[in-house]
Each structure stands twice: as C-alpha cells, then as structure tokens.
C-alpha cells in the first residue's frame, strides 16, 4: 500500500487527437475528489532544492523507451537491413492488435510477409512493406473480421494488397496510409466479366463491397 505520493499532475501534454474518423474525441471527467497535491515532504521549495535534485527529478519523470520502440541505427543500411526493418515494423504493428487476432491469423500474415520479402527473390523495382499501409490493413481485418485468409502482395510503393479469390470471382484491396483503401471486385456474369471498383476509408469499406457476393470471405457484424 502506498504511503507517500509524489504526484506531478500538472504535466499534461496536449496533442491533436487522432481517431479513425479524423474527428477529435473528447474526454470528460466527473466531479471527482481533487487529486492530492504535492506531499508535504516533497521538498520542492525553491530555497532548498539543488540543481542536482532538479535534474534527478526531471530524469525520473521521463518514461524510458520500451524495447520495442527503441530507435535502431540508420546509417548506410543495405538492402537486407532495409527489408528487415520494414518487416520488423510490420510485425511489431501486428503485435499491437494481437489480442484481437487468433494465432493462426498472425502466423499466416507473418509467413506471407516473409515470403514477400525473401531476399533471394527480391525485385529491385519493389519497395518493402510500408508500415502505414500495414496499419490500415490491420485495422481493416480487425474491423471486418474476414473468415477467409487473403493472399497478400505488395504494390510498387510498398502498400499491402490483399486478394480473396473463389473460382473466377475476385476481390482485391490495396491498403494506403491513413485508412484509405482501393478495392476492385470482379466476377463472371453470363459469360462476361463484371467489375466494380472504389476508393474509400476503412470505416466505409464493408458498406461499399457488401452489395457484391462476398459471403465466401466475410460475415461482418459490427460490434
């Protein structure tokens, strides 16, 4: 049980809130009891505290970078290192939502990412996976919860591309940064290939594609 509180409540850092819709969310606190102010023993009198103590307290305020968020050295990376960085970031991003994915999904994504970035088959015209695109992809699959695994590919800009195929019926989605997606659906109808395409946000994606016969791949129910 804590017996002494040395709380520094005043250090609020306000930054633009970032949400899926891009609109600011607002947080309200109730009329709760006031948080206790500095303890009587905190000894922050300007007459008593030394510069060393100030430095020490400032140091202790810093939350150290966690192991997953450490910066790695970036000078003169060769292709193998660039590719490693890209896949590492994608896998760390996946870990951030791993509690919403079952293990098979995670393993499937990682296997495909590794295959796409196989150094032995690397095409110099390609770019490694773009982490912002990965994040859009992850937000999509957690939101829509596909029941079938997609095949994954990379665009020349390093955007992830997911494809679901049943016979000649196909849905392809390219995932851009900042929750943007581009989708193309095609299926044979009376001997002709019927196509539909669109550009939309992750939020709107299912509404846009649900008129098409996608039941093989999705059974989306909004929570």
């Amino acid at each position: 049980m804590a017996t002494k509180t040395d709380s520094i409540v005043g250090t609020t850092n306000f930054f633009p809130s970032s949400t899926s819709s891009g609109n600011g969310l607002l947080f309200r606190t109730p009329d709760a009891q006031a948080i206790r102010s500095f303890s009587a023993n905190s000894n922050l009198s300007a007459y008593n505290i030394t510069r060393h103590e100030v430095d020490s307290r400032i140091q202790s305020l810093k939350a150290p970078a966690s192991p997953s968020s450490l910066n790695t050295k970036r000078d003169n990376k060769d292709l193998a290192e660039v590719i490693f960085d890209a896949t590492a970031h994608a896998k760390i991003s996946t870990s951030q939502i791993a509690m919403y994915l079952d293990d098979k999904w995670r393993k499937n994504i990682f296997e495909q990412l590794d295959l796409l970035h196989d150094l032995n088959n690397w095409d110099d015209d390609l770019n490694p996976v773009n982490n912002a695109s990965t994040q859009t992809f992850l937000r999509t699959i957690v939101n829509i919860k596909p029941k079938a695994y997609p095949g994954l590919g990379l665009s020349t800009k390093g955007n992830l591309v997911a494809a679901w195929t049943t016979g000649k019926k196909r849905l392809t989605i390219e995932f851009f940064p900042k929750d943007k997606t581009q989708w193309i659906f095609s299926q044979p109808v009376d001997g002709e290939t019927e196509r539909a395409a669109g550009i939309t946000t992750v939020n709107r994606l299912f509404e846009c594609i649900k008129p098409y016969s996608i039941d093989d791949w999705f059974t989306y129910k909004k929570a």
Partner: protein
Amino acid sequence: MAQSKTYARPPITEAVIEIAFTSALNKKDLVKLSKKYQSHYPKEDSVSNFEVEVNVRGVELDETTAKLKNQRLGHRRSSEDMCQLLVLWPKTLTIAQLAPYDGWSIFYQRFNRDWRTLKSTVAQREIERIGIRYINRIDIPVSSPVIEHEEFLNIFPKLPDMLQPMNAFNIQAQVYLQDIDCQLRINSAAVPSPLIDHASFVVDLDFLRVQNVPQNDRALQNLLNTIRNKKNEVFESLITDKARALFNHGN
C-alpha cells in the same frame, strides 16, 4: 496476494524485466554475450542512446554550446515474429514480450533462461537495479463524440468543468510502495487507437527496486514474483468492471 485474473484478451502490449548492473560490460564482452543469444533471438539490430548537454549562456547563438555527454551502444535481439525481444546495453539486460502475452509463468521462464546465459558468459556483477514494467492499452468502443473514460479507468486528470471535455491527456504519478520497497511510476495517456471506432488509453506501470537489491538468484526470483503480484493488484485498482468486460469479450 492479488488474485491473478486471466483475460481472454489481456490488454498487455508489452511486458519487460530489466536488470541493471553497477559496472558496465566492455564492448568485446557485450558482443560475445549477444552472440550467445542468437539461437533464441536470431534477428539482431544495433541500438544507440545519446545524451546531449546544451548550455545557454546568453542571448547570442554563439554563446550557446552543445556537447555529446553520453552515448550508449547496445544490441537488440528478437525472435522471428518480433514478439520476444532482448536488449543488451553495457549495464543492463532487458527481456521483453510483446502481445500476445502468454502469462507470467512462460515469460519468467524465458527471463530465467536468458539470465542464466548471462551469468555463465560474463563475470558475476553486482546488481544495481531491478525493474518490471507492464504497458497496457485499454481500447474503448466509441458510440458518441464524448468518451466517459472514467467509467473504464480509475486514473485520469481532474479538470474544472469549464475546461472539459479534453482532447487528450498524459499524466504521470510516482509512488513509493513501502510493502514491497519499490518505486512505482505510472504513466497514463490517451493514444491514437489502432482500432476503428475506438478510443485507446495506455496504462504503463513501471516498478523499480533501487535499494536493498537482491544479489542471489533465489532472492531475485522472490522479488520478481512479489512485484508481479503487486502489479496485478495495482492494475486491477486502476480499472473498472466495464474495462474488465472489454478484456473478456473485446470489440
């Protein structure tokens, strides 16, 4: 002892155990030690940490000087899936587990294995500091523009009505836990959510033992288990039943 709750979707995004020593390893020993972990952590990266001191003596630019005060070079090793990390600095060994978190027992076994590897590779060193850190993220479904996050969390800033609602917050509290003789640093902040239509809040609990630091394995094990139990107690005190329901039923 705090009841250990098992959640279907534990909100832990990163769990960390860190051991800091009073004396640093030299560069050669650090490289040698890093190689010992290769079979468990095949991916390796170099990491660096800089401290820069800036002295501002007057109003002119040429009266300001900056110098590199401290530079640390370390090794970060990881499993293929990047979920198991090990970081070696000259004075610290850090073991981390990213989500999915498989429970304390498995995490502690890995720490124990890697701790024994260190001890068998380099000379015995005095331990200066022991730390356990759990970073949790609580994802709250959003159904209106205003989130009543106090229905999910017991940690938040208090502002007068005229200054509400807030767009964002970031708070830190430092607490001395006398019963386990540890410092606790709690960081909590609203963060960009990785999920659609959710608001997310981080609750970062960092426990440090910096005095009466155990120096043998049995005492170290006892302390780590004690801190872990306290962590559960603290975390449960910082969330409400509505948050617990999220961890069991999710989004």
